[in-house]
């Protein structure tokens, strides 16, 4: 399984047009050899979930720079669970306050990346985590 390309869905949900960060991350993941479907900004929760299912994604990456991330992530994680997508590595990034990171993790978000994180660190994180999950998946 692990020789297959890692599939990633990235994008922004709702009313936040700050797309520069997510585009940089998208490109970095592509450059690292992953297959990334970038949905752009202004997406709805359902559209994102649909894309994760259609693409059979290993990773979902969402970016928030304008607030509302707790509410949106609650909705996303609820749908992830309802659709049996727990194997998907969900990561978030952007302007998120320190206190909110543990709350995000309780929801099931695997990791939160803050402004200024080197792209290489994010790529490493995703590669390692996806590999781990694939191993667990193949054992089961």
């Amino acid at each position, binding site marked *: 399984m692990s020789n297959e390309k890692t599939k990633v869905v990235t994008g922004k949900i709702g009313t936040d047009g700050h797309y520069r960060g997510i585009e940089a991350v998208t490109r970095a993941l592509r450059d690292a050899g992953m297959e990334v479907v970038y949905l752009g900004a*202004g997406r*709805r929760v359902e559209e994102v979930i649909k894309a994760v299912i259609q693409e059979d994604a290993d990773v979902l990456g969402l970016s928030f720079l304008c607030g509302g991330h707790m509410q949106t992530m609650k909705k996303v994680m609820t749908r992830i669970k309802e659709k049996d997508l727990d194997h998907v590595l969900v990561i978030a990034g952007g302007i998120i306050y320190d206190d909110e990171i543990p709350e995000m993790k309780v929801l099931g978000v695997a990791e939160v990346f803050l402004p200024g994180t080197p792209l290489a660190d994010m790529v490493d994180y995703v590669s390692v985590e996806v590999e781990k999950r694939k191993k667990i998946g193949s054992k089961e």
Partner: protein
Amino acid sequence: MVSNKEITDMYREKSTEDTTASGIPVKEVYTPEDIAHINTEKDVGLPGQYPFVRGHHPLMYRGKLWNIRNITGLSTPKAYNERLRYLIEQGMTAIECELDNPTFYGLEPDQEAADGHLGVCGTCLHSLKDVEEMLKGLPLEALSFSSAPATPDLSQAYVLTAMKHGFDIGKLRGLALIPHFYLFNTCVPDQEHITFVHGRTSTIFRWSNDFLEYACRNLFKWNGWYSSGYDLREAFCDAVQEIAYSIAIRNDTLREMIKRGIDANVAAPKFMPVLSVEQDFFEEIAKFRAARKVWAETLQRDFGITDPNALCLRFHANVAGSSFTRQQPLVNLMRGSLSCLAGVLGGALGIQVPSYDEAWATPSEDAATLAVRTQQIVRYESGVPRVVDPLAGSYYVESLTHEMAQRIEAEVDKIEKLGGWLEAMRTGWVKNELEKSQIARQGKIESGERPVIGVNRFTIPPEEDFKPKRYTPDTSKDVDPYLAEYLEWRDTKRDREKVKRTLGNLHTTAEKTKDNLVPSVFEALEADATFAEIRGVLRMVDGLEYDWAGEREYPF
């Protein structure tokens, strides 16, 4: 522990930069030879005179200091009114109103897509009533108001409020920005949205041109809508592209106004771009000086404009929010003051300095106050505003100004050959250029070629870092009561027949593509139609879903 070798290396460290941020090669030393090709009288001239390299006014800040126009906006119209009064008391001299996302996107505050966004990152304004509340008791003729909505609803509500209170709208000073018109289509792939619909420009886009036409004819001191070079810069273009794109957008919009029968000499002074100030000090200053030159020369050359007042570029400068880091946030105060100084030396009419906690959360009152104080240090303590364009004659600055002007002009000509800005955007050329720029610039930060203190140099562990006070308003005191009151008003207190009739009129007007939408929008606003309803009707005219988020049906 730092090694002795490192100490020696640090002592001997030298500047290795041999290009500006936009890639213009620079020498170690500049001499009179570097400006020998510049005709000082013709190419530089005097302040307030063509080609305006040295400034828009003969006296510059000795005639009037720049406006301290910091971006503000929080929670509800009432809370924002209080914050505005506080900041004005602290020395802020002009308003730039930030909106929350539901307002920006024309959503109703109670719909699902607005969840978590109400009163966050800006103030919520959904009707004429809200705008009146926000402006309560403020002397509108003595203020300059600007905002960055996607549509003119807020500006029209502002004008109506002024009329209701008996102010002369001919004296209103303002600046209504609609920068995102020019960005939406670059960031949301495969989706019908605001600028283009079915391959043509949308009715909402036309509304903006209608409002600009109205402003040309009625709001004599209002600087009409104009796209923001700042937003393009935040989308990662460089200094040369920023000015060239701003001029290309101006050209498209000016041609539209001329088509509508407005004299180019009347329309041209309406364009007031908001430009960015990033970290490369001299390049930013040279950029502003070069911008005024190319702005004036292209207006004269391509539009035959003769009135000096119409040829002169006036701009507001936003210190780049994206240059403010989350790491070591207090360092942002230094970044803010340096960029503010560059804006002043470049001749900005107004400046915005972000709050140092920009990359953390909605600015606290303390942080917003420090952003005002930063400008006051430059205004009152530095002595910089004392002399007009004090860098004129510097071999380096004049040489760089000249070089940038040539590069900007070449870029403007390139876009004109592509058929103008809108066409370049529609075909994806703009998106492609921004992407190329983005890759190049992000790469420089990642590789450390472009130092960012606290991010790729002189870093410290996050747990040792300073954490700004978190702005956590008690929503039960402002946002919740606002929402309850708004819903009661919207659902039970309005004259529904009147709202329905005026929205129907707006729909009819919108279908006649030659009619100006402004009077019908005024009528609908006065009848208590909400911003979301007005925008929804205009979306329906284009065959789009009434609600941008697809959650609501047309209620009438």
